[in-house]
């Protein structure tokens, strides 16, 4: 939950512990930086999802199937909850971009307008930079939300108690692929149960005759 009731003594104890941990971590990192860096970051500001648009594949051979265009787009630090955003991201997974835009247009949630803007930006990027011929020929392959950096504020309760309130932010990521969306097989509950029973039956007992 975003809020938790804490007494003043508890918070000062937590602060002291955090200070100890921070000083210890700084001490450790200063010793390690001289030894080696296990991961090398190219630029300070670039994040993984944005960098995925920059990969360049070598030219394809004549017999290879045509690689569909993939467009990665995201928006960071949206003032919305990641759990609430997840419902909208789940709604549009696997839809064509036009269908997703109409569904979001008539949804009353705050995140719907934000995701609609992101999708329109991604569509525009696809047509301009990623050699997509028809802007409607895109479908949403991946769409998900993640937790952004929270700001912390104090929420005042009675009797001198207070809670720490989180001002939630979220990131939203989307990946568009050119082409017709793949058909997902609708599995019934009976089929799933049958598969589960088959899995159980296929188990082998080790060290047996």
């Amino acid at each position, binding site marked *: 939950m975003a809020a938790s009731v804490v007494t003043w003594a508890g918070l000062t104890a937590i602060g002291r512990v955090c200070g100890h941990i921070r000083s210890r971590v700084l001490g450790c990192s200063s010793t390690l930086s001289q030894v080696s860096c296990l991961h090398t970051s190219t630029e300070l500001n670039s994040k993984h999802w944005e960098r995925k648009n920059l990969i360049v594949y070598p030219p394809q051979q004549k017999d290879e199937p045509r690689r569909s265009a993939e467009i990665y787009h995201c928006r960071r630090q949206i003032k919305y909850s990641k759990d609430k955003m997840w419902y909208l991201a789940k709604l549009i997974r696997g839809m064509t971009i036009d269908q997703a835009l109409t*569904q979001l247009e008539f949804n009353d949630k705050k995140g719907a307008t934000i995701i609609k803007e992101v999708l329109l930006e991604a569509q525009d990027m696809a047509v301009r930079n990623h050699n997509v011929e028809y802007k409607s020929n895109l479908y949403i392959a991946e769409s998900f939300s993640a937790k952004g950096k929270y700001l912390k504020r104090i929420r005042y309760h009675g*009797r001198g108690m207070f809670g720490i309130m989180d001002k939630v932010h979220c990131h939203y990521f989307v990946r568009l692929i050119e082409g017709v969306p793949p058909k997902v097989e609708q599995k019934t509950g009976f089929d799933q149960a049958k598969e589960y029973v088959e899995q159980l039956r296929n188990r082998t007992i080790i060290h047996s005759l």
Partner: protein
Amino acid sequence: MSLSGLLQFVGRSLQRLELRLAQAAGFDSFGPALAVNGPQILPQSHHSSDEENSEPSFLDSIFWMAAPKKRRTIEVNRCRRRHPDKLIKVQYNIEPCPECGNMKLKHTLCGFCYEKVRKETAMIRKQISIIEGGPLNAPAVESVVLYENETPSEADKDKRIVERNRKRPYWFNM
């Protein structure tokens, strides 16, 4: 029956009756039944009643409040949060507007068309406010909106004319 046997029986029955009466009264100990000036028989109730009356701390009242017994695991939480009832349902009552081609809900006016009518209405209202000059100056006759190169017709003789400096919009038919 002998007299002594009868007397013994009566005595024993009386003892039993006394014991039962004593147990009913609360004296479970089988010690001396003498009334002694000692400590009170049930001292706890007085102490507890005093404490409750003097300091009703809210920490005590927590003992009678509902609280979760165990932490809800993430699997249980996911089952609740991702239940199909809680997921957003796909709407099937969206159709394209026959006028402008934007999408609209079946039982609602098209947002785009409504917006363009609203903008034109705002301009007409601005024109009316310029003509009237202030509040409460509305005339007691009907108004008619005329666009460029339009003259009032026979039916518009007694009406107030509101002029707009643009050509008639295609959707505004008299």
